[in-house]
């Protein structure tokens, strides 16, 4: 019953001559939360950005190997299709400063030129904000610009923006590293709720977070995928000594 949504085989990524992701093979199961952890510089963020082809936006960035979504090759699809299916939330909250909260949520439609009826828009905005548990906090100030929101609220707004596009997969690049502990916990709570509808891949350098939120955890080290197991197994019984060293805090 567990079907694979994202699959990568012998996947490599580089910046110029700097080989940062090496031969990664991974199967991401549908409607699960997968955490990707590892010390900084281990290639985890680069790998994540390869999944929805954000990696190639950086000049000099290249990649090789197979990456599929629903058995379809991501690298033969147009990046726009890929990004419509695979949404992304970034390290720092980045709501569009020129748009209101309302418009930020439907930014994907608005900016892609997709015309929606007013009622439809209202429904998407309410639905998406409800999903990220932000509706009650902002419903009275939907037309204001998002600048007054707290960091956690801004990040949830960004998640709502991604959710509004109804992607199949959501990528999170260290989504709470710029947030305070309370905001972090509100965002983490969301992950459990979101996985019923989406597949979540979360890059984090915070082991506790990986342990708290994910079903499966992948450990990257020096560009290699060292271990990829059920979260409860990897933290209680790591098979590789490098994983062991990492989770016992021997290097960070």
């Amino acid at each position, binding site marked *: 019953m567990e079907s694979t949504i994202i699959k990568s085989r012998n996947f490599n990524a580089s910046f110029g001559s700097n080989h940062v992701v090496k031969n990664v093979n991974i199967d991401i199961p549908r409607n699960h939360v997968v955490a990707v952890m590892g010390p900084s510089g281990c290639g985890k963020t680069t790998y994540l950005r390869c999944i929805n082809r954000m990696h190639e936006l950086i000049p000099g960035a290249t990649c090789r190997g197979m990456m599929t979504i629903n058995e379809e090759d991501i690298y033969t699809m147009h990046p726009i299709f890929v990004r419509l299916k695979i949404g992304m939330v970034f390290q720092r909250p980045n709501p569009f400063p020129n748009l209101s909260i309302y418009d930020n949520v439907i930014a994907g439609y608005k900016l892609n*030129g*997709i015309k929606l009826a007013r009622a439809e828009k209202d*429904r998407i905005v309410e*639905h998406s904000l409800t999903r990220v548990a932000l509706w009650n906090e902002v419903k009275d100030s939907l037309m204001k610009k998002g600048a007054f929101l707290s960091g956690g609220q801004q990040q949830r707004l960004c998640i709502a923006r991604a959710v509004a596009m*109804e992607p199949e997969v959501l990528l999170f690049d260290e989504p709470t590293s710029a947030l305070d502990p309370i905001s972090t916990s509100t965002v983490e709570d969301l992950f*459990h709720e979101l*996985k019923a509808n989406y597949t979540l891949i979360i890059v984090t350098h915070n082991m506790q977070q990986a342990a708290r939120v994910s079903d499966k955890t992948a450990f990257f080290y020096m560009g290699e995928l060292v271990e990829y197991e059920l*979260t*409860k197994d990897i933290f209680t019984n790591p098979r590789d000594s490098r994983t062991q060293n990492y989770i016992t805090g021997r290097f960070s």
Partner: protein
Amino acid sequence: MNMETSIPASVIPSPVVRDGAGLRKRVRRTFRQIRGEGAFRSLLLIAGGLLVVLVLGILLTLITQSLPSIRLLGLKFIWGSTWNPVRNVYGAWPFLLGTLLTSFLALLISIPFSVAIAIFLGEYYPSSWFAGALKNAVELIAAVPSVIYGFWGLAVLVPMVRQLEARFGMEQPLGVGIFSASLILSIMIIPYAASLGRSMIQMVPGHLKEAAYGLGATHWEVIRHVVIPYTRSGLFAGILLSLGRALGETMAVTMVIGNTSILPKSIFSPGNTMASVIANEFTEADKTVYLSALIELGLALFLVTVIINIAGKKIIDRVTNE
């Protein structure tokens, strides 16, 4: 870590049903947009390329249009001191000399002022209200149209210079001439060197100045031995940009220089610059060689100002990247 206890989000209905029709519609739209993306990238490329084509076109036009004059007159054009279109004699030396005299005289007059402004704003009072006023005034000097400088020069400055000349007992106190043009120009070019010099001076690292103060240097000695040496090339670039501006300035100079093609005898003589002779005679040029000779002046002006400006920019880039 128990996932089962969390609230299943599936109880909230999904707003956009992932049904066949909706997806097909989205796919069609996306294909349209992908085509638009390619077109937009080429549009950007065209806009960027257009600027290069524009500059090449300007250079090419100037060269081809001045060919008749270059062929016919050769180097005589530069050293010939007679410009007489009626007799078909074209020597541009009076204009070259006029341009050099006005520009360098203007530069000489303006340098102390622009350097003083740069030091004042960059070092002495970077952020007080009267520094703000001075900064605005300098920007205002740059904003006033050159034709207004020319008109004011003609109405106010020229009579003053005329009185001055009469007092010194000159035979023909005209007022108009190279000196008046230089005075007007010197005001107009102050902002260029001043604002660049100011930003250069503000870039001087604080620790260098503190080191000098720590050795017991006075403010003047810090300026003299730390600030000025550190910003020397930046100040030079500012002066180059001012010079480029002075060489190409047309209207104000045309209005007060007296417009004569006779070789100037002194800085009080009337004269012409390359730019002012083009402005005055371009629409009257009835012969091919005449027009072509004027365009050759334009070509020379173009090349000189381009070289000066590029040199100035290169110096600025080098200084700011250090």
